[in-house]
């Protein structure tokens, strides 16, 4: 009983939060302005609790397992959700269904926690669904906008399709190995064609959720149509959790097939980086720009994953921590500008610096970090990813990745140029910035600078296992 409480602590906390929100909704209506600070404090508590009483071990016959690394990954996701509650406060306060929004988001987060901790393919599948279906409903939260419904519909259809492929892959794995438990599968793998086929199906489902290139077509439309808070959740939290479980699945479960998946990862990473970057070059809408840039970033993550070493794990977790700060800051500024000035095109950002100095600097810092320019943490994140990928000695592959970083500079800096240098006769007026948004942007900015400079963090992640 004691073990259950400590090992499943983060999941139990989230379940309690879900039920609290349900009762808030059932009870007499509480105004959004009064409820939002309470939820923010609860999410902050959830983040802080993640650092204490972390145990290691497995429960329910290996169905659920946790370790110090998994606890750290969960902290990253909790932090991202806390930042969402801060940065998008303006939109959330006006939303008619704010309690439901948090209820669905926390349910999806619970699904991600269970997914990262799962030790069985059935458990993995159910928690993957739990982390997807609520997000599809969240994508439809701009109820009066057609594009929002379109995005939600595209997301639910493409995720249902990828679930079908995943289930087919899981059933083939079960047919070929006779077990669903992560711990027992590796011993049964011998590289027979059926097992390779099963693995390809399983991997395609991961590629769908991570929007790796041949499977990326849903991402841009969904990101553009949904509210920016949901875009942030999809492009940061959802992708980070998928990258974490992909590491477990590749490094532990399908370890015997590593020569096969290494080649797959190299091809997919190159295609993802190149296609994501080339499409991002042409975008005028800032949300679509971030959609394609997040596709390109996943390509870099795949470079890190391909190393198949502890350095690979550490570099991916470290990069995701930085990516949470940088992408959240960029999307947070985009949300404020879109909410108050109604601008979502890059041309609309021209001359933003004239009246909104704080927002401009926050956006610039976030974009520098996303592009990977040295003093910011994004540079160190990319550096470690490429260093990890280079361990296998495929230097031409790393060269392609490095060249892609240069291409990405163009479209990130185009936004910076529009904000600081382009002349505009009617620049956006002074945007009143709420305290919570300001606090969120300050946290993100501090994270972008400090995580890069404090080298101890990377070393600390490397000691986790």
């Amino acid at each position, binding site marked *: 009983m004691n073990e259950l409480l400590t090992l499943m602590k983060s999941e139990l906390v989230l*379940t309690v939060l*879900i039920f609290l929100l349900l009762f808030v909704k059932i009870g007499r209506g509480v105004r959004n302005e009064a409820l939002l600070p309470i939820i923010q404090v609860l999410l902050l508590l959830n983040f802080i609790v993640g650092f204490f009483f972390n145990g290691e071990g497995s*429960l*329910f*016959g290996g*169905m*659920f397992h946790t370790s110090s690394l998994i606890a750290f990954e969960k902290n990253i996701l909790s932090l991202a959700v806390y930042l969402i509650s801060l940065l998008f406060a303006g939109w959330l306060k006006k939303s*008619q*269904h704010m309690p*439901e929004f948090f*209820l*669905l988001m926390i*349910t*999806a987060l*619970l*699904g991600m926690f*269970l997914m990262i901790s799962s030790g*069985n393919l*059935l*458990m993995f599948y*159910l*928690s993957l*669904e*739990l982390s997807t*279906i*609520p997000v*599809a*409903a*969240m994508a*439809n*939260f701009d*109820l009066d906008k057609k594009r929002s419904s379109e995005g*939600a519909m595209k997301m639910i259809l493409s995720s249902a399709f990828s679930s079908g492929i995943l289930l087919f892959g899981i059933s083939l794995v079960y*047919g*070929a190995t006779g077990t669903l438990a992560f711990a027992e599968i590796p011993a049964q793998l*011998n590289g*027979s*064609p*059926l*097992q*390779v*086929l099963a693995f390809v199906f399983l991997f395609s489902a991961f590629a769908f959720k991570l929007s790796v290139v041949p499977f990326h077509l849903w991402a841009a439309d969904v990101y553009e149509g949904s509210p920016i808070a949901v875009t942030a959740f999809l492009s940061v939290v959802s992708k980070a959790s998928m990258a974490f479980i992909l590491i477990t699945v590749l490094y532990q479960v399908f370890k015997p097939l590593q020569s096969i998946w290494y080649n797959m990862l190299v091809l997919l990473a190159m295609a993802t980086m190149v296609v994501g970057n080339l499409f991002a070059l042409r975008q005028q809408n800032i949300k679509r720009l971030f959609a394609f840039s997040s596709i390109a970033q996943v390509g870099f993550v795949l470079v890190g994953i391909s190393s198949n070493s502890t350095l690979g794990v550490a570099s991916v977790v470290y990069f995701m921590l930085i990516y949470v700060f940088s992408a959240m800051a960029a999307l947070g500024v985009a949300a404020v500008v879109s909410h108050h000035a109604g601008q979502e095109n890059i041309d609309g950002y021209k001359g933003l610096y004239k009246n909104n100095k704080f927002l401009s600097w926050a956006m610039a810092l976030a974009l520098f970090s996303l592009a990977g320019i040295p003093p910011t943490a994004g540079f160190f994140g990319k550096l470690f990813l490429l260093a990890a990928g280079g361990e296998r000695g495929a230097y031409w592959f790393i060269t392609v990745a490095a060249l892609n970083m240069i291409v990405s500079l163009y479209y990130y800096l185009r936004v910076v140029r529009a904000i600081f240098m382009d002349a505009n006769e009617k620049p956006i007026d002074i945007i009143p910035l709420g305290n919570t948004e300001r606090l969120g942007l300050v946290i993100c900015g501090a994270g972008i600078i400090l995580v890069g400079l404090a080298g101890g963090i990377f070393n600390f992640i490397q000691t986790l296992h």
Partner: protein
Amino acid sequence: MSIIEIFFWLLSGLAIFSAIMVLISKNPVHSVLWLIVVFFAISGHYILLNAQFLAIVNLIVYAGAIMVLFLFVIMLMNLNADADPQKNVWLKVIGIVTGGLLLTVLVSAVRSSNDLVNRSAELKTGSIGLIKSLGITLFNEYTVPFELSSILFLSAMVGAVVIGKKE
């Protein structure tokens, strides 16, 4: 050839034939009706494998509930035989080529797998599909996924209510 084998080939043929009919029927309602036949054939396979409970659940859930929903949706959308959205010939050609390639890969992967050579399904024996062993497994080994699915349904319900409730 024993009676079970005769049933097996009969049901397999019926399943494949009606699955093809699902695809080539012009009228969506006919497609749904053929799909029900597919489910009946598959339920027959479950009975041959001595999994009565799965057979009945398959019938109740798929052939019963889900098919009724399907029919409702199709009738509400009022599709008719003329509504054929696929006009592009090249799209059809590409679809046939990729589908055929996938079929080739699937068949060759199954044929060249050593794991499956000389293995046959347990016919008429085995207790894995009986309601007793299913219940014991579900509430011992798979308690957590079982409970997890209840949260999944809760969240899906909340999401559906929010989307459906437009003031």
